[in-house]
């Protein structure tokens, strides 16, 4: 029994939660939804325990640090923040309609962490550049931001499905009917992007402060820095389009997809460009 074993179980639990949310959408009824939430909470609790365990193990190895230092650990944490965001919204709004598009993102992150080639799940010591108190605050805030954008992305997909439904109400099925209304999806997109944006901004600021101490400049146009700024700009635009007539709704939903693509490139794609942030060398 180890924390990596728990984490592989969590991957399956999240998949199960996704299937249950899907059943709820297709078959209806309260019980599927309750089971789905139960699975989501169980997985989240187990994942939290596993992350804390891994943290503790690193200290017993004498190289103690928060488990946020490599691709594997950050992927696991990404899944954790997505679930945190999802469960928070579910609790706050009392609606279980978001799970079917958001929980699979957490599942995919977990699955990627365990099966992608070149992802090392061992606890490694920190190289000199990472030995900083800013590591934790930088990574946590960035991923809280990413989680908000992941949630908005899920809502954006729902928005497009729902508009397809609104165009042809006669052959609409149960799944589409059970999606939240366009107005509430629009509101949810705006709010999760606003939350994600505040966190991303703090994430970039903490990263800049760290870079000021580690790399000699608060901004070096390293590809990851640049891409985080591109992502920031995409969401800044998204938050401003509501002031342009007729841009809310479909266009904002489209921007959630553009934005999340940029998030994924910032997180993963950039590793294939040369730079200071690269996980791959």
């Amino acid at each position, binding site marked *: 029994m180890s924390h990596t074993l728990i984490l592989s179980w969590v991957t399956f639990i999240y998949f199960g939660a996704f299937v249950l949310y899907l059943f709820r959408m297709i078959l209806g009824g309260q019980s599927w939804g309750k089971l789905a939430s139960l699975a989501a909470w169980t997985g989240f609790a187990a994942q939290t325990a596993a992350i804390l365990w891994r943290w503790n193990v690193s200290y017993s190895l004498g190289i103690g640090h928060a488990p946020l230092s490599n691709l594997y650990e950050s992927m696991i944490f990404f899944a954790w923040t997505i679930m945190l965001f999802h469960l928070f919204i579910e609790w706050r709004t009392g609606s279980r309609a978001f799970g079917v598009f958001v929980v699979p993102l957490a599942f995919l992150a977990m699955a990627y962490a365990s099966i992608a080639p070149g992802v090392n799940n061992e606890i490694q010591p920190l190289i000199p550049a990472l030995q900083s108190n800013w590591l934790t605050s930088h990574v946590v805030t960035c991923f809280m931001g990413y989680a908000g954008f992941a949630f908005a992305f899920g809502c954006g997909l729902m928005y497009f499905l729902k508009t397809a439904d609104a165009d042809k109400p006669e052959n609409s099925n149960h799944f589409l009917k059970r999606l939240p209304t366009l107005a509430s999806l629009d509101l949810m997109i705006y709010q999760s992007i606003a939350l994600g944006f505040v966190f991303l901004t703090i994430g970039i600021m903490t990263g800049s402060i760290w870079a000021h101490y580690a790399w*000699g400049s608060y901004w070096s146009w390293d590809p990851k820095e*640049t891409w985080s700024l591109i992502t920031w700009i995409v969401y800044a635009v998204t938050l401003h389009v509501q002031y342009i007539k007729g841009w809310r709704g479909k266009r904002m939903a489209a921007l959630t997809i553009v934005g999340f693509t940029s998030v994924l490139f910032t997180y993963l794609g950039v590793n294939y460009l040369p730079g200071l942030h690269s996980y791959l060398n």
Partner: protein
Amino acid sequence: MTNIKTSLRSFFSSIRLTVVLLIVMALLFMVGTFIPQRESAMEFAQRLSPGISSLFHALGLFDVYHSPLYYVLLGLLALNLTVCSLNRLPGSWKLYRTPHFPVPEGLFSKLPPNRVLLTEQNREACLSSLESLLKASYGAIEKDVKGGHVFFSIRKAGLSLFSVYGVHLSILFMIAGSVIGSVFGFEGYVNIGEGETTNLIDSRNGRDIHRLDFSVRCDKFTLETYANGMPKTYRSDLTFLKDGQPIRQGALMVNHPIHVNGYRFYQSSFGSAPGGRAVLNYSKGKGQEEKVAVSVGDRFDLKEGGAHVEILRIEGNLMKFGPGVKLDIASPQGRHIQFWVLQHIDEIAEMYPELLTQFPLFDPALFKPYRFFLKEIEQQYYTGLQVVRDPGVPLVALGAFLMVTGLILRHFMPHRRIWVRVDAAGRQTRISLAGRSRHMAALDRELDLLGRRIQEKGIV
């Protein structure tokens, strides 16, 4: 004239312009991450056809983040933000100063049922307990009586109306700070061997050398590794000297820069270079080997014979033959002989049997009857320091602080206005709650909370 002025103003205050500028900037940055920039651009440019290469060069695509296009975009964005903010400021100020009463028209029509609370208490008792509850919860409240209705008015987070200007101003601060940094700042690199002192720093562009008014000595460089071989610590023990007197001493590590006289020093790289000391052995004929440790410029006398040896050069890799030391030997008769002593001369001579006859320069036994052997060249660490001065940092930091504060204020503490109306509904007393805010969800939460408080107090 006024027409042009108005249309210019409306052009620069347009939010569409902001969106277009931001998108063009994002695209430019993307290009910058795919085309190698600055130091690494040269090699890439040579692989392109000359036409494309010079086009890219003209557009500044090899240094996107310092290109004229980038500065033009920054300037336009700054202008756009300024005009846009100035245009909207009076509206926000008016909203901030709006009197609490009269209540906005239609505010209390079509209220959802949960915003209307009914009580059997008489109106006076209800009013006094409600007023004290509101005062306790919100502090300053305003009261108005009109046509049999009593109104209370509350405002929260009025400052939030101005948060957007804080965020826009923060961007201007950051742009200004970055421009100040790139105009008045300095970035350079210097390698200092252990025991060496310098005050000359190569600037980043490599074109000039910057002379500090103090100097830096590297006393020691330490590299520590973990058990698995990963690097653990890079550390330079430095002494800063002015007029030969130490002014500062400290251990420089990654993540822990040292500030001296307005410059920041960073542990940037390290390396090891030969050229410290060489260990030479020599023997006379079949005699016993003698051992000497030497540096460049050292002189010593050979035993038995009185010849005088001077070390001319110590090379880590001479013509790909490996480590070598060049000697100048002066015989007692005043004759000078110069030759190289290569560490791997035996292997080399085996590979190139003709070498020693064709090039006696490489014969370690050229000064007969002596023969020299190079045992090793000691490696000497050097530390690579990055030296930075950026007077724009405080302005950028102020901008960052302002931006985060502004965003939190805007998104988490939105401006809310709440009105509570008390009137009679038949024999009952009716309390109605309503409000206005840009942020409806936050307003709803606030009103829910107020409704719960009224119920908990036993007012209804």
